[in-house]
């Protein structure tokens, strides 16, 4: 008996060692290139650090400058405003698409692929396409004209991406469209985990479609809500590519598209202030970390309660 148990233990520990060996290389790479880079960025955020010239320890100077930097303020406001609008829209649209795709019987695979397609297509290609659609003489304004409107008389002269008042909102619409497919997939997985007998019981009790959605589907999806909210907030606060392609590295027009990551890129690669850029990155990290903790407080308890 004792021998057998010991053999079991050694076999288990041998399996464990083999398992760790398998993941050792990717784990080391991950530690070096994620945590190593993060720690290093934190380190140089306290230095004046340019390309080749001498470096100098400046203490919290970079952070002090950052707090008073109007361009950084603009970038934070833009990023947060963007996240606050985009995240609920993404979640709502993703949920609606998931529920619809989950219920149709005909062509489910086609619709799932069609809704997910924008998420896997190159965001650069989609953004360029979108710039053409939203141009003053583009498809969108043409459709408005067919509906009887005259976009050239609008306050932005039908120039959605070129006008400071509508550029960020236009990118919001673009991203809600392109990323809702991913959110739909998360929700679809959640929907399939809900036991069907709950719906049967509810039907027996006389619950309508609407009641079944709000009383069963929505609360049972709590873990999915948490996952979708967290990934969506992180993605929104890291907005870069669409803003860069539509507005260049200074967030044209008039800094309307200047996001935190775009500002970081601009500071590092156009101003060569790597120390300052690292400070921007650390503040961005702190904001995302705080947002994720908040969501854990908010959604995490709900999803626990649902799982119990």
């Amino acid at each position, binding site marked *: 008996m004792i021998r057998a148990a010991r053999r079991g233990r050694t076999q288990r520990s041998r399996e464990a060692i083999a398992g760790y060996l398998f993941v050792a290389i990717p784990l080391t790479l991950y530690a070096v290139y994620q945590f190593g880079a993060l720690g290093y960025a934190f380190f140089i955020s306290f230095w004046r650090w340019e390309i*080749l010239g001498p470096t100098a320890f400046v203490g919290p100077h970079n952070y002090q400058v950052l707090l008073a930097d109007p361009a950084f303020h603009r970038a934070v406001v833009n990023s947060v405003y963007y996240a606050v609008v985009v995240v609920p829209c993404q979640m709502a649209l993703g949920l609606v698409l998931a529920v619809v795709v989950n219920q149709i019987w005909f062509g489910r695979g086609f619709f799932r692929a069609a809704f997910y397609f924008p998420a896997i297509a190159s965001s650069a290609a989609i953004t360029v396409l979108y710039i053409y659609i939203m141009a*003053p003489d583009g498809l969108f304004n043409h459709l408005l004209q067919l509906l009887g409107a005259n976009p050239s008389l609008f306050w932005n002269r039908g120039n959605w991406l*070129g006008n400071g008042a509508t550029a960020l909102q236009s990118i919001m619409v673009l991203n809600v469209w392109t990323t809702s497919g991913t959110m739909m997939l998360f929700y679809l997985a959640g929907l399939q985990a809900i036991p069907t007998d709950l719906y049967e019981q509810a039907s027996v009790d006389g619950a309508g479609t609407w009641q079944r959605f709000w009383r069963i589907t929505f609360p049972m999806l709590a873990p999915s809500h948490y996952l979708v909210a967290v990934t969506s907030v992180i993605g929104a606060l890291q907005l870069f590519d669409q803003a860069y392609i539509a507005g260049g590295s*200074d967030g044209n027009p008039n800094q309307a598209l200047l996001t935190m990551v775009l500002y970081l890129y601009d500071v590092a690669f156009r*101003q060569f202030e790597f120390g300052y850029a690292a400070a921007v990155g650390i503040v961005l990290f702190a904001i995302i970390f705080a947002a994720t903790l908040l969501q854990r407080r908010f959604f995490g308890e709900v999803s626990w309660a649902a799982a119990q």
Partner: protein
Amino acid sequence: MRRIPMLAAALALVAAGCGGSGGGSTATTFDPAKVSGTVVLSGWQASPEEGAALKQTLDGFAAKYPKIKVDYQPVQGDYPTVMVAKFSAHQPPDVFYVDSSVAPDWIKQGALESLNGYLSDQHFDTSKFFPGYLGAFKSPDGSTTYGLPKDGNTLALAYDNQMLSSAGVQPPTTWDEMISAGQKLKAAGVSTPYCLADDLARVGAFIYQNGGGIIDVKNRRDLIDSPATRQAVTWYLDLYKQGLARSDKDLGVAWCGEALGRQKAAMIFEGGWLDSFMQGSYPNVKYTWAPMPKGKQQATLGFTVSYSIGKESAHKQAAWVLLSYLTGQDGMKLWTQGGVANPTRTDVPPAAGKDVLVQGAKYAHPWSFVAGFSKVLDAFNNAFTGAEQGNGSADTVISAAKTAIDQQLSGP
């Protein structure tokens, strides 16, 4: 997809920490014919025609200096970003392109080798270069040269032949004629006479024509807060207000060249890069180059790119031999004769049809100011776009630009 820039930035930051400073001083008295080795040459390549012209030039170099092998490594994508990563990794190419707009930054960062020793010891005559081009690659006090211009472009007026002739309008030669030509075109049914970019890299030409300025690089003070500059900016903004001009953004085009190609505007102010674009995308639209209209004085902006040597290059003598050939009379002739680029030397004749653009170099001001100029450019352009869209005026534009300039000039 969103993480890539963060990761790239992090890698560049890591790379910046490794390695010591290499590249010591190199003797500048040597016989070019006896130098041997391999030189890495980097730049960007805008078109296959450019690649063919460069190959022809490098063949000419190989025939003259058979002992030096050139390893051409063109950079794909965002050139300044890639080069900054190479500088921070302490592995720059030996010879590479430097755009005049980033030259002050790269000089300040110590990425470029001073050419003074080579110029004097190898008896290289720089007086044949147009001063407006050469000046872009000198230190602020003008004493040190960090690159020799390989080619250059000036802003000039490009007009649609058919639109102007059917309205009976001559290309304008003065500011007053610009207004009257615009009004005539408008009366003849041309909805947008001018496409004007809301960009200091275009407005600047008109600022200089009015006797204004942007930055006094030598004495480190701003010239933008001056009556002449203010007047020019106001005048340019008024062209939009009077309905004579629209911006590229407003016309829904990527840049004014596209507006000319799609015949959405009759006249634009661009440089030689327009030619290859029009041939490729809009070969049926006929247009003609004319000199910039004259304000109080004849002026335009000069955009140029140099060949420079990396400060941390390990093959500086061979690099100099290549650089001096490429920017010398023979090399530049081979490079520019097909019309892919315009010469920066007065002793190399312009290719057919490029006369206006080359002659503009005589009165061109270099598009190159101080380190950190991109912040000034952003401040000006952001405020200018705002003013063009009705939020602000010439005053807000000038004060935004002045704040940014003062900030850059007060820095270390």
